[in-house]
C-alpha cells in the first residue's frame, strides 16, 4: 500500500513549489499588517481614556431606548443584554475592548477570514483542474493508488492550506498586536450574557470561536470550488462561480428572506452566529436545522466530486 501521508506530501509539494501560493500567503500577511498599522497610526488614538463617562452616557441612551420599546409592547433583548454588560464593566473596572489593543486588533483580524476564503477557493479550484490543464493527470493516475485516494489527498491538502492560513493569521496577529499595542489589559475577559447574567469568558477562546464561525462559510465554499473543479476540470469556472456565490449569496438570501424556502439555501445557514447573537434570517430556523442543511450540502458536493472523478475517462 502506498502511504497516504506520502500522497499528502506530494500535493503539498506541488502547492508550495509554486510562486502563486507564496504570493497569496504574502498578501494575507500584508493585509493583517495593514489593519494593524492603520489602527495604530491613522485612527484617533486617545478617544477612550474616559471610557467610564462614555459608558454612562451610552447606558442612559440605552435605557431610554428600552423604555420606548416597552411602551410599544415589544421586548428588546439586545439592548437589555448590552446594558447588563455595561453595568458589569463599570462595577468590575473592565474597559470595553477597543481596536487599539491586542485583543481588539485580534478580533478585527478575524474578519480577514474572508480573505483566506478567497485564496482557499483559488487553491481548491486549481488542485484538480490544473492536473487536467497541465496534462499531468495521466501520469498521476497510472499509479497503484485508487482515484478516490488521490482525490482525498487533494481535498485534505486544500483544507490544510485553509487551516494553515488561519493559524498564521491568528498567531501573527498575536505577535504583531503585542508589538504594536503592548500587552496591557490582556487579563481582561470577554463578557457574554448567558441565562440572565453576565459571564466572563477567556478572550483567546472567544477569538478562536470567531474563527470557527467564520470558517464554516470558508469550508463550504472550499468544498463547492473543489466540486466544480473536479466536475468541470476548469479552475477559472470554479473560481468564478464560487466567488460570485460567496459575495452575492448572503445578500441574495437577505433580499429573499420573506420567503420560507430561502432557509433551504446554503447561504441562509452558513452564518451560525445568527443563533448566538442576533435573529435567524427566516423565523423558526434553528441551529440544528442549519447544521443539518450544511451537512446535506457537504455530502452532495463531495459525492458529486467523487463519483465523477472515479468514473471519468481521462483523455486530457
Amino acid at each position: 500500500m502506498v502511504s497516504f501521508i506520502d500522497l499528502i506530501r506530494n500535493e503539498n509539494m506541488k502547492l508550495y513549489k509554486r510562486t502563486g501560493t507564496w504570493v497569496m500567503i504574502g498578501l494575507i500577511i500584508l493585509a493583517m499588517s495593514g489593519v494593524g498599522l492603520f489602527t495604530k497610526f491613522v485612527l484617533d488614538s486617545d478617544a477612550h481614556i474616559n471610557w467610564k463617562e462614555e459608558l454612562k452616557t451610552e447606558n442612559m441612551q440605552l435605557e431610554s431606548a428600552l423604555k420606548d420599546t416597552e411602551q410599544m409592547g415589544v421586548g428588546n433583548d439586545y439592548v437589555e443584554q448590552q446594558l447588563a454588560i455595561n453595568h458589569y464593566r463599570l462595577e468590575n473596572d473592565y474597559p470595553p475592548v477597543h481596536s487599539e489593543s491586542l485583543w481588539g486588533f485580534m478580533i478585527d483580524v478575524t474578519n480577514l477570514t474572508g480573505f483566506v476564503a478567497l485564496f482557499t477557493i483559488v487553491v481548491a479550484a486549481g488542485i484538480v483542474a490544473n492536473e487536467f490543464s497541465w496534462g499531468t493527470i495521466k501520469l498521476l493516475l497510472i499509479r497503484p493508488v485508487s482515484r478516490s485516494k488521490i482525490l482525498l489527498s487533494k481535498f485534505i491538502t486544500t483544507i490544510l492550506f485553509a487551516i494553515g492560513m488561519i493559524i498564521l493569521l491568528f498567531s501573527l496577529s498575536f505577535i504583531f498586536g503585542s508589538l504594536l499595542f503592548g500587552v496591557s489589559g490582556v487579563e481582561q475577559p470577554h463578557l457574554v450574557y448567558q441565562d440572565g447574567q453576565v459571564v466572563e469568558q477567556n478572550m483567546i477562546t472567544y477569538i478562536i470561536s470567531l474563527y470557527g464561525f467564520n470558517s464554516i462559510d470558508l469550508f463550504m465554499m472550499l468544498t463547492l470550488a473543489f466540486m466544480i473543479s473536479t466536475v468541470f476540470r476548469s479552475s477559472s469556472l470554479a473560481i468564478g462561480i464560487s466567488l460570485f456565490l460567496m459575495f452575492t449569496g448572503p445578500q441574495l438570501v437577505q433580499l429573499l428572506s420573506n420567503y420560507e424556502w430561502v432557509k433551504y439555501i446554503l447561504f441562509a445557514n452558513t452564518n451560525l452566529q445568527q443563533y448566538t447573537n442576533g435573529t435567524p434570517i427566516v423565523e423558526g430556523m434553528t441551529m440544528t436545522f442549519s447544521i443539518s442543511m450544511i451537512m446535506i450540502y457537504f455530502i452532495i458536493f463531495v459525492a458529486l466530486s467523487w463519483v465523477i472523478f472515479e468514473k471519468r475517462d481521462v483523455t486530457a
Partner: protein
Amino acid sequence: MENQAVVELINVKKQIGNINIIDDISLKVFQGEVFGFLGPNGAGKTTTIRMMVGLIGITEGEVLINGVSIKKNYEKAILNVGGIIENPEMYKFMSGYDNLIHYARMVPKKVTKERINKVVQLVGLEKSINHKVGRYSLGMRQRLGLAQALLHSPSLLILDEPTNGLDPAGIREIRTYIRKIAHEENMAVFVSSHLLSEMQLMCDRIGIIQNGKLVRVETMGDIVDMSKEATIRIHVEPLDEAFHFLYALYEKTDIEIEDNFIKISLKQEQIPQCNKALVENDFMVYGITSTQTTLEDKFLEITEEK
C-alpha cells in the same frame, strides 16, 4: 520464462457515442520482447494504450497484466506497469528530480535515492536533473518521461511515441536503451509509433492497427523478407505477348501493364531468371528498372489495401 504473456488484450473494444474507436483487438506481449504498435494518425494507438493503463474504460473485452485484470483489480495490475502516454507532461514549476520524487512516493515498494540516481544516469539527464522542467527541451522531457516510467522497475513498459521530438542521436540512444532493457532485464515493451523505419530497428514484432482494427501482426523477420521483394519495370517488345508469358511463368505475383511497361513484383534473385527467360524466348528486352520498395512502402501498402 519466455512464454509468459506480460500483457494480454482479449477482444478489446472501445465505443464512444456510436463510433467503434477500437474494434476487437486481441494481442499478447511476452517477456523480453519489444512489441511495436504501428498505425497512421488517428488509428487508435493512444486510445488502446489509455485502456491498457486504465485511464479510460474498456467498453468490452479485457486487459490482463501478468494475468491480473486492469478492470477488476486496477491497483495490483498497474503496479508492474510504467508508461508514457502521448507527451510526457510533468510539473514545470518543479525540478526534474522533484518530479521523480513525486512519482517515487506513489509506489508501495520504496524507491531508493540510489535507484533514482541510477535511472537519471540511464536516461542521460545528470546535468539538468536539478533544473526546473519548464526549462527542458522536448527531448529532455521525453527522457524524464522515460525515467519516471522506469523508477519502480516495472515488468511492462508502455511507450506512446517515445521518440517524438528527439534528434537522430537521441532516437538512436532511446532505441538502443529500449532494446537493452527488454533483453537484459526481461521486460516487455509495448511501443507505439507511426514510423515503420523506427520500429524496424527496435522491435521484435509489429502489430499494425488501422481504423481501430489490428490488421496484422508480423515478426520483424517476416517484414524484412517482404521488403526484399522489388517491383521492376520491364521495357519489352512485343508487350502483350510478353505479358501473357510472364503471367503464366509467375502465377502468384502482382503483374500489370503500365505505360507500355510491364510492372511486376519479384524477389531479388528472380530478376536475372526473368530476364534470361524473356531473352531465351526471343522477346526484345530494352531495359529493366527496379523500383525498390522500402518498409515504408510496404506499410503504406498494407494500410491502404484495407
